[in-house]
């Protein structure tokens, strides 16, 4: 049978199933195949905090969305064109996001009376006409997989578990994905259990063959590779990019990296990744708590290491006192906050931008710290190096903000050449800097206001630092009122004077009257929305802040040069408050705090409203 092949420019697929169904793995593999094929892509994993929520229930649904295209794309997509639903819960939880006419591939084997009633279905939606407005493919994924694996020496349970590979094979056929990578992956993953490896590969191939032969799928799709900037690419998630950025910062600064960290969702993968790379001289320390994590990192920084701690919002709250100590001892330190939905425990696996004000101000006393925010998953690499550059050059703790969406989302990344990376090396102080061979630990560099960094082991520079206010220059304990006022201002001036690149504005026509501004992970949805608005014939300018403290020097000028400034944030207006206070600009906020990224269509409508309103 010859099947029709249709050309598409982009597709959004969502794999959804029980959290034990292996949906994240399936999504990862489809992503790897798609990256290998050369499409541009963006991914959005979405999973419950529970490791194994009760099977078949709505809270237990785990999903993975992938957007891929023959052109450059900016987001994981608003609404799926295809939903793979491994059980009734997955269908019910995701149907609301699915536009009419989209494809549903449902595992009919799991639509049993018991599973249906578990999620409140009275009848079977695969059998009544309730899904008539979608293109339904009811496929017995489980039984087809078990049948395909009859000849293998594995348990029935293991055979059933391979159904995600059957689904992956089917989707791989449907979108003409290369399969060698997945075969190699499965061989490596199950190297110690060759029978399981063979069975999974067989299930994967059976899925592919099923697509080829079944009448349920009459069309397959081609999405041509995207034309991206020449170079070598890999797919990378935000957490992996951040870990690699920290390793690069260690190499480029010629300082050993010391990570003190306590496991917390969604930041733990940075700890895991860095733990694998001891051959770069990296020491990772899983501390007894968040406070010990940052404390150990600061202790290592005192000893001359590039000290780093990684956490999420609740951890930042616990680390605040130690960050204040780093502010006053003026030691380099990187604090990574992979933001998640709060307050308190909140929704650990969901994303948010609600820690900005805590990063800025969440300490006692006047304790300014630089704050940076990555814009995309791969930008986490660049911003990790930038955080290290600032920390080392200015001897200060730096807050680097990522979030759950960047951490787990992925995109193709053009791998930089090593000589494209900045040299951020610093020299320890080894000579006395005062009269008569004395050492003044708080004698500042007149240009950067940074203090010298003399590490233990350096003869003649023995000195004491601490949390008590210090006399300017000598660093001795001082309760002098004027000295305190001076030190408060010096610490602020040092942070205010950090060299930060200017804010750039994207405005293709150059005469837009509305600026849409963003920070952090909203870059993708905002840029995609701006494109839509422009495609519809309107004018809008876009600018994105990656340095939040200090702000780029031209920020006020940029804001004032537009009639209206729109600022979407996944919080209740934290940056808007800062900008209004600082620049007296009447920023228009758009806020949704749903634990999910903005959708491009949603923002396009908001931008259009702002353009059209008087």
């Amino acid at each position: 049978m010859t099947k029709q092949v249709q050309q598409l420019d982009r597709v959004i697929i969502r794999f959804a199933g029980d959290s034990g169904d292996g949906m994240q793995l399936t999504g990862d593999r489809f992503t790897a195949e798609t990256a290998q094929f050369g499409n541009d892509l963006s991914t959005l994993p979405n999973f419950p905090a529970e490791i194994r929520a009760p099977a078949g229930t709505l809270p237990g649904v785990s999903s993975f969305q992938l957007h891929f295209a023959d052109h450059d794309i900016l987001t994981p997509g608003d609404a799926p064109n295809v939903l793979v639903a491994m059980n009734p819960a997955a269908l019910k939880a995701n149907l609301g996001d699915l536009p009419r006419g989209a494809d549903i591939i449902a595992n009919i084997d799991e639509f049993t009376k018991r599973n249906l009633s578990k999620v409140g279905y009275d009848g079977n939606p695969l059998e009544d006409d309730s899904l008539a407005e979608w293109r339904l493919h009811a496929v017995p994924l489980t039984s087809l997989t078990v049948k395909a694996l009859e000849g293998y020496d594995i348990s029935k349970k293991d055979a059933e578990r391979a159904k995600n590979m059957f689904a992956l094979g089917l989707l791989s056929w449907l979108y003409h994905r290369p399969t060698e990578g997945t075969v190699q992956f499965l061989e490596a993953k199950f190297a110690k259990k060759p029978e399981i490896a063979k069975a999974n590969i067989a299930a994967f191939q059976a899925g592919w063959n099923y697509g080829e032969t079944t009448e349920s799928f009459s069309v397959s799709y081609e999405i041509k590779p995207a034309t991206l900037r020449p170079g070598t690419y890999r797919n990378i998630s935000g957490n992996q990019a951040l870990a690699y950025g920290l390793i690069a910062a260690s190499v480029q600064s010629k300082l050993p990296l010391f990570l003190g960290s306590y496991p917390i969702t969604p930041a733990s993968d940075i700890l895991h990744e860095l733990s694998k790379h001891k051959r770069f001289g990296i020491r990772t320390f899983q501390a007894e708590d968040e406070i010990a994590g940052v404390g150990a990192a600061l202790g290592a920084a005192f000893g001359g290491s590039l000290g780093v701690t990684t956490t999420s919002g609740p951890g930042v709250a616990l680390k605040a006192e130690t960050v204040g100590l780093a502010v006053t001892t003026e030691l380099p330190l990187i604090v990574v906050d992979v933001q998640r939905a709060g307050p308190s425990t909140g929704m650990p696996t969901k994303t948010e931008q609600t820690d900005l004000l805590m990063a800025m101000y969440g300490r006692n006393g006047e304790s300014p710290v630089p704050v940076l925010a990555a814009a995309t998953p791969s930008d986490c690499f660049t911003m990790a190096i930038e955080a290290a550059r600032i920390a080392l050059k200015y001897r200060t703790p730096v807050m680097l903000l990522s979030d759950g969406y960047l951490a787990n989302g992925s995109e193709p990344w053009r791998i930089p050449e090593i000589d494209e990376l900045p040299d951020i090396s610093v020299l320890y102080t080894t000579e006395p800097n005062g009269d008569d061979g004395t050492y003044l630990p708080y004698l500042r560099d007149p240009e950067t206001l940074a203090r010298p960094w003399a590490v233990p082991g350096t003869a003649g520079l023995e000195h004491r630092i601490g949390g008590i206010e210090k006399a300017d220059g000598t660093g001795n304990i001082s309760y002098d009122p004027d000295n305190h006022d001076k030190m408060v201002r010096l610490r602020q001036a040092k942070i205010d004077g950090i060299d930060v690149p200017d804010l750039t504005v994207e405005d293709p026509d150059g005469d837009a009257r509305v600026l849409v501004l963003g920070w952090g992970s909203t870059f993708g949805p905002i840029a995609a929305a701006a494109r839509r608005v422009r495609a519809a014939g309107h004018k809008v300018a876009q600018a994105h802040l990656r340095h939040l403290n200090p702000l780029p020097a031209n920020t006020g000028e940029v804001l004032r040069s537009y009639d209206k400034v729109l600022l979407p944030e996944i919080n209740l207006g934290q940056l808007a408050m800062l900008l209004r206070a600082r620049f007296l600009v009447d920023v228009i906020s758009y806020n949704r705090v749903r634990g999910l990224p903005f959708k491009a269509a949603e923002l396009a409508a908001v931008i259009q409203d702002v353009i059209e309103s008087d």
Partner: protein
Amino acid sequence: MTDTLNGKGLALIPRTDAKQTLKDFKSDQEVRWCPGCGDYAILAAVQSFLPELGLKRENIVFVSGIGCSSRFPYYLNTYGFHSIHGRAPAIATGLAASRPDLSVWVITGDGDALSIGGNHLIHALRRNVNLNILLFNNRIYGLTKGQYSPTSEIGKITKSTPMGSLDKPFNPISLALGAEAGFVARTIDSDRKHLQGVLRQAAEHRGTSLVEIYQNCNIFNDGAFDTLKDPGVRDEITMRLEHGRPIVFGTGDNERAVRLSPTGGVEVVRRAEVSDAEILVHDAHNPDPSLAFALSRLDEPAFEHVPIGVFRSIDRPSYDQLLNEQVQAATAGTGMGSLADLLHGGDTWSIG
């Protein structure tokens, strides 16, 4: 198996042949404890003991938390870090784990180490990073002006407990032994010879050493340890633990000994009532901490007998040593990693 550096705790720390004196370790800062504070005696003992170690002064670091005792680093002309309340063990852990060439000392008090910093203390002890933790125990909060502490006796009348404190105190020695500490000792601020002897053993032990130092706060808890200092009484109640020696103390008719008790612990009996063979010989190197723990319980009833000295000193690899061996193993043969190889690892594809 990893060779331990026990007994060679200073092996990785650069030494100097230059003669050092007490003066070399005094900083130019005015000491600001209350006149008569026990901290002065400890400071003087430490300053005069450090030259004995023969270490390069620049490779010695004192890290402290918050409290009266935590001002200690300012008065020593070494590297020093006066940190935040309770966190000194965590900060010192990062320093010592990344710099095995340093002799790192933590100065802390009963409130700092056992209340706000209790978690860091127990984890430092089990982890066994190369630290010497000196716990100044005055059984009171001094810097906040006289509230009861986690080592104050039950019923302590203080500003925050006008009708008496209700909570049972920690025994720091029992706590440390329970937390898997490899080196645990107790000494007294006023007994310089004993204090310095214990410090020497702590310094030479590679791994975390905990030294509890009874220290008198003459303002808020004066005389807490007077019984141990009274010439007429002290020799009758001070039980000096020495490795390999039978545990006997007291004089004349009041001489007493320690033997195994029928209930599985240890007990104090009149010396005259037991044969030599029955007397417990102190074994600080016993891998089983049970007897050391039992000895630590002889604190009670209060001041009837008080064991001091090294309760436990065992040989096990330190965390910093193991961590650095992992780094060395990862770089062995191939050397340091290549950043380009790392970034190009995994599935890649080329465009253009």
